[in-house]
């Protein structure tokens, strides 16, 4: 009776899996690029374009020389053809007025085509339209093109804007903190990033200041054959707090593009950093052609006592995701959190999770991971909870749930635990479930359409993570997950 009945549950899931990527357009804009390939000259060229001080160039070169000795990691549960690192363009920037390395002074100097691009993406930058309560740094390919609300933030001593600008204006902060959480020789992709990173966001919240608005970076890849290597550094001084959001999209293209970013967070005594990501890079088409390789290193250091770092991520895009936002819990009584929703459709692959490194006493961490697999998607949770010798009374709670839609996809869980202190307490819970035909039918029998029913069930599954997102992002994230606007978050 299927034909009389309308859709079966697998049809519904397929329909949702087949949804078009709505951010796949290309902005036609003149770009300034460096020649294809990677060598020391390219790195010098990038550094020169950014007008960087000598210490920065030397740091890049040190990283590059080290990278040459490294092997691309193969331990992740993802499969892709070998990347030719000489076939990538490492720098691409829209041509703009003003001196090299200097961001535009005002929006008047920004190419209107760029403003239109961000407007189309739902991130209006102009004074009249910009989002209330959210300061946005817009990064387009290799450069930051605009940052809103800078002056207002500056009044409170908060520095927020392009990383390349911070290198010039606040070299002492960069020297002190760059590489302090993710060292230049950390891993293959982070080391590559250290050599060739182009732009990203920098935020500094001074002592005792609670940042009055959400800070946000919107990353956009536009140019073809380029890699995006952004670097983000956020520092919260004693007693400071900040909530930071990042979003990302890319055009639809048939070839894969590499995105290898590094994010470092530093929280001093009593500081709190909340970092939220809605990752929606182009995932490739339904046959697995194209899409972004999202190989990202994100790590936060709870350097101070009672400091707290919280990662929340909603990963719906990218052909391959390889990222483990982690916390080093150095300060006594510090807290690390990781809330994640990773969704893989079609032929997407995700290997994601976190590392919680407990070093200080009474350190606590929470891991909530929700993996959703549809189509031929493969979803892996990989996590490490490490309790060092001195981490007396450390606590961890981990929960990893997987939801399967259809019978072609996969869910995998690799939780690693290393404990060197017997006073610690760790809990781990895991579950795997399928969206049931009975759940869908129950919703439909109450008048709810099949699509809304799937959204509702997925939304319910992700609820404990979605409610960690700032309100504006929660709505965005729900839309991304194919959910209705009128969500049940909160």
């Amino acid at each position, binding site marked *: *009776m*299927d034909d*009389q*009945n*309308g*859709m*079966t*549950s697998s049809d519904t899931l397929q329909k949702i899996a087949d949804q078009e990527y709505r951010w796949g357009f290309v902005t036609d804009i003149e770009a300034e690029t460096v020649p294809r390939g990677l060598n020391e000259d390219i790195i010098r060229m990038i550094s020169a374009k950014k007008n960087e001080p000598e210490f920065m160039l030397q740091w890049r070169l040190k990283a590059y020389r080290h990278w040459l000795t490294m092997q691309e990691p193969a331990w992740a549960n993802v499969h892709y053809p070998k990347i030719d690192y000489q076939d990538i363009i490492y720098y691409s920037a829209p041509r703009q007025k003003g001196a090299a390395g200097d961001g535009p002074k005002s929006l008047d100097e920004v190419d209107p085509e760029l403003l239109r691009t961000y407007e189309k993406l739902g991130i209006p930058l102009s004074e009249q339209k910009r989002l209330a309560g959210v300061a946005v740094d817009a990064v387009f390919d290799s450069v930051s093109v605009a940052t809103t609300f800078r002056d207002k933030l500056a009044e409170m001593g908060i520095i927020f804007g392009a990383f390349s600008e911070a290198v010039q204006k606040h070299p002492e902060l960069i020297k002190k903190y760059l590489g302090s959480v993710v060292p230049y020789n950390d891993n293959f992709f982070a080391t590559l990033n250290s050599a060739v990173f182009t732009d990203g966001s920098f935020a500094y919240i001074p002592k005792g200041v609670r940042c009055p608005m959400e800070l946000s970076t919107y990353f956009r890849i536009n140019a073809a054959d380029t890699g995006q290597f952004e670097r983000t550094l956020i520092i919260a001084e004693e007693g400071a707090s900040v909530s930071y959001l990042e979003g990302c999209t890319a055009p639809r293209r048939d070839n894969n593009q590499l995105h290898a970013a590094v994010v470092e967070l530093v929280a001093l005594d009593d500081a709190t950093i909340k970092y939220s990501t809605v990752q929606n890079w182009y995932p490739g088409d339904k046959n697995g052609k194209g899409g972004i390789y999202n190989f990202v290193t994100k790590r936060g250091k709870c350097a101070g006592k009672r400091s707290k770092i919280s990662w929340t991520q909603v990963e719906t895009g990218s052909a391959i995701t390889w990222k483990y936002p982690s916390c080093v819990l150095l300060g006594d009584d510090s807290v690390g959190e990781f809330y994640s929703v990773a969704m893989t459709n079609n032929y997407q692959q995700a290997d994601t999770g976190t590392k919680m490194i407990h070093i200080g006493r009474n350190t606590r961490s929470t891991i909530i991971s929700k993996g959703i697999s549809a189509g031929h998607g493969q979803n892996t949770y990989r996590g490490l909870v490490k309790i060092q010798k001195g981490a007396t009374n450390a606590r961890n709670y981990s929960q990893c749930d997987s939801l399967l839609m259809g019978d072609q996809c996969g869910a995998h869980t690799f939780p690693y635990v290393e404990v060197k202190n017997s006073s610690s307490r760790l809990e781990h819970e895991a579950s795997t479930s399928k969206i*049931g*035909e*009975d*759940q869908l*039918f*129950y*919703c*439909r*029998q*109450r*008048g*709810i*359409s*099949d699509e*809304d029913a799937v959204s*509702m*069930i997925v*939304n*319910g*599954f*992700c*609820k*404990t993570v979605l409610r960690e997102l700032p309100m504006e992002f929660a709505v965005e994230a729900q839309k991304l997950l194919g959910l209705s606007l*009128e969500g*049940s978050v909160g």
Partner: protein
Amino acid sequence: MTPATATEKKTAMLEIRDLRANAGGKEILKGLDLTIRPGEVHAIMGPNGSGKSTLAHVLAGRAGFEVTGGEVFYQGRNLLEMAPEERAREGVFLAFQYPVEIPGVSNLYLLKSGLNAVRRHRGEPEVDAMEFLALARERMKLVAMDESFLHRAVNEGFSGGEKKRNEIFQMAVLDPKLAILDETDSGLDIDALRIVAEGVNALRSPQRAMLVITHYQRLLDYIIPDAVHVLSGGRIVLSGPAELARELESRGYAWVETSPAQ
């Protein structure tokens, strides 16, 4: 079987003619006829495996049940052509024998979404959160439910009795024209049974028809039907007034199965 006349067709809420349906490749319903008019409550009784739940699922449009013959008219329209959600929006409600758990989705959210889907379908304005809450609070009283149930995940961690009360509560909110109660009494103790039955009775109205499916007669002590039908081997083999239920209870289904049909 007598063919329905034009006037009967007009007034019937549900008219089933010679319905045949398979489940899992096996023929379960083998020519079932039944007509229910607005305001009537019909009970379907029968032994396990007689096709009671298959009938409920076919009427609600569940996948996995193949209709191989016959017709079903709901308010004169071909019910079998409608998708499950369309049936629901048109006023067909199924109280599930085994209500489904949906983790992370609040009872309130599910039901408000359902009610608004029904209202949109009828061209009525959607209710907002406050209006919905007011309505829900009032209807919960029918089955003596606590408001906290609204905020709990759908059926998650509910006891058997709570799940069944929740079904009747949902019915009270959605205000259907045809309510199908699939073994609503199963798994209930006598107090819960009384609460559920009182809720159902409060929802009886001249505009609403009900089909009460049950294995045992005890539910029909509380919900007095206008007619009782005995389903056996995929067909209705005996129909009668409410008293028939008591007779069945005392004599058992074997008595019917061996007696000549009709």
